[in-house]
């Protein structure tokens, strides 16, 4: 028992040391220019946050991207859950919907750029692309979640003479909740990705725009700051939804 706790403490220490080492490595590579001028020291990247104008720019871009990603996550999750339930209610549709989801998932996100600009405009496309990026993950996890109810449970309800709707509402939807939450956690970084890629088609603001313009203008520190902000957004959304999942999922298992 003591050894178990000891090894846990050791692991925690190693993880902490690892985090410090990673940050130190980022700093050192920049300071000694080990990877050229494109990799600034971490401290210099953080320094630019002292400039109010930069801070405002970063904050506004982060908020725009977060909004788009959140909206995309919401739309993508709702649509794909509804479609997945539809496929369960009407099994005729199931195979076709599966294939449609797979093919849509294989379409390169950038290929949709021109279509979306023509239909929803430059400002709307990031959220739509985010929704599409979310859609596949959510569709797959919801579909398998709806199948997750055990045969024994289904047999019990069938023996009780439950209708399809009752089975869906009382058994299959609740049984699907853990996997839907799993999917949502996985989909959060995908939403951030979709929003940023969507911004690469000439959106008026956002982290994606900032990333590309900073790259083209050789504003290395700003570029890295935007990259770190994007990473932070993805990590935070993943962590928040992961926490929600672990808080809620146990009720349904």
């Amino acid at each position, binding site marked *: 028992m003591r050894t178990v706790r000891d090894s846990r403490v050791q692991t925690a220490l190693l993880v902490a040391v690892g985090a410090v080492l990673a940050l130190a490595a980022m700093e050192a590579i920049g300071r000694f220019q080990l990877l050229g001028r494109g990799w600034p020291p971490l401290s210099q990247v953080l320094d630019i946050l002292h400039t109010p104008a930069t801070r405002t720019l970063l904050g506004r871009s982060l908020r725009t991207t977060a909004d788009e990603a959140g909206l995309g996550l919401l739309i993508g999750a709702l649509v794909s859950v509804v479609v997945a339930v539809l496929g369960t209610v009407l099994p005729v549709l199931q195979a076709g919907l599966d294939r449609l989801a797979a093919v849509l998932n294989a*379409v390169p996100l950038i290929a949709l750029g021109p279509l979306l600009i*023509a239909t929803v405009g430059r400002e709307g496309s990031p959220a739509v692309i985010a929704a599409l990026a979310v859609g596949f993950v959510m569709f797959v996890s919801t579909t398998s979640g709806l199948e997750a109810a055990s045969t024994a449970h289904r047999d019990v309800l069938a023996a009780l003479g439950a209708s399809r709707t009752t089975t869906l509402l009382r058994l299959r939807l609740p049984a699907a909740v853990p996997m839907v939450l799993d999917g949502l956690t996985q989909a959060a970084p995908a939403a951030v990705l979709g929003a940023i890629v969507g911004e690469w088609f000439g959106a008026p603001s956002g982290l994606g725009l900032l990333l590309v313009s900073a790259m083209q203008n050789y504003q290395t520190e700003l570029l890295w700051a935007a990259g770190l902000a994007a990473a932070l957004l*993805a990590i935070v959304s993943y962590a928040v939804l992961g926490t929600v999942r672990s808080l809620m999922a146990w009720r349904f298992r």
Partner: protein
Amino acid sequence: MSGSGAVLRRFLGALGTVFSRYWTVLALLLAWELWVRARHLNAIVVPAPYSVVSDVFDNPSAYAGPLGHTLLNSVVGLALGMVLGLWCAMAVWFSRMLSGLLTPLLLVMRSVPVVVMIPVVARVVGFGTPAVTTITTLVSFFPTFVMVLSGLRAAPTAMTDVFAVLGASRPMVLRRLLLPHAVPELLVALRLTAPSAVLAAMLAEYLLGRSGLGTLFADAVVFVAPQRAWGAALIATVVSVACFVAARGVERRYAGRFR
């Protein structure tokens, strides 16, 4: 006569299967075509599917070169990423210290979409092919690393016990037991990363490449050649689906032998 009848019936049967599975995709394409025709939309805004397909078939040479570049970029990146992922997984399996030290990096990499970092990577390694290769490498590295490591750690206790009792050294356990045992995970990683390596390569080319399908797409958008742009997208989609189907085929054929 009856022979040809049977052939016809089988053909119709196969057609029916394809239709029952892909009717949604076909319906989408049909609706799109009809919509474009009915609204008399300008081809610059949205080209009809038929015109896109005919552009691809009429100008194969315009697509062949870029396709080759994209394929090369993705295959090189995929191979590099998977080899690196395999090596790192083995290194972390060997060293508990390394596994602890790398945990924060792995947690970060699990949630950060690599593709978003294309501009940063380009600034560090240089625009053009190096950046494209680096991105495809990173895209395939992480799933390989995670899957293979979980495979290495998931060998049944009875098997590791047998090796322990036989007095096997750690490299011997790795070579004779754990690596073969992790082959299915490696194949899963291939299925997951092969399609996304193609798409990531195309995205990187779009942003900064000087060749490949992504650049073809970007140029076509700039020069207002919608059929060409959509053709590039169509080919990328087909290649990505083909990669998925091929990787899944390899997985189905070989994964079973290792469990």
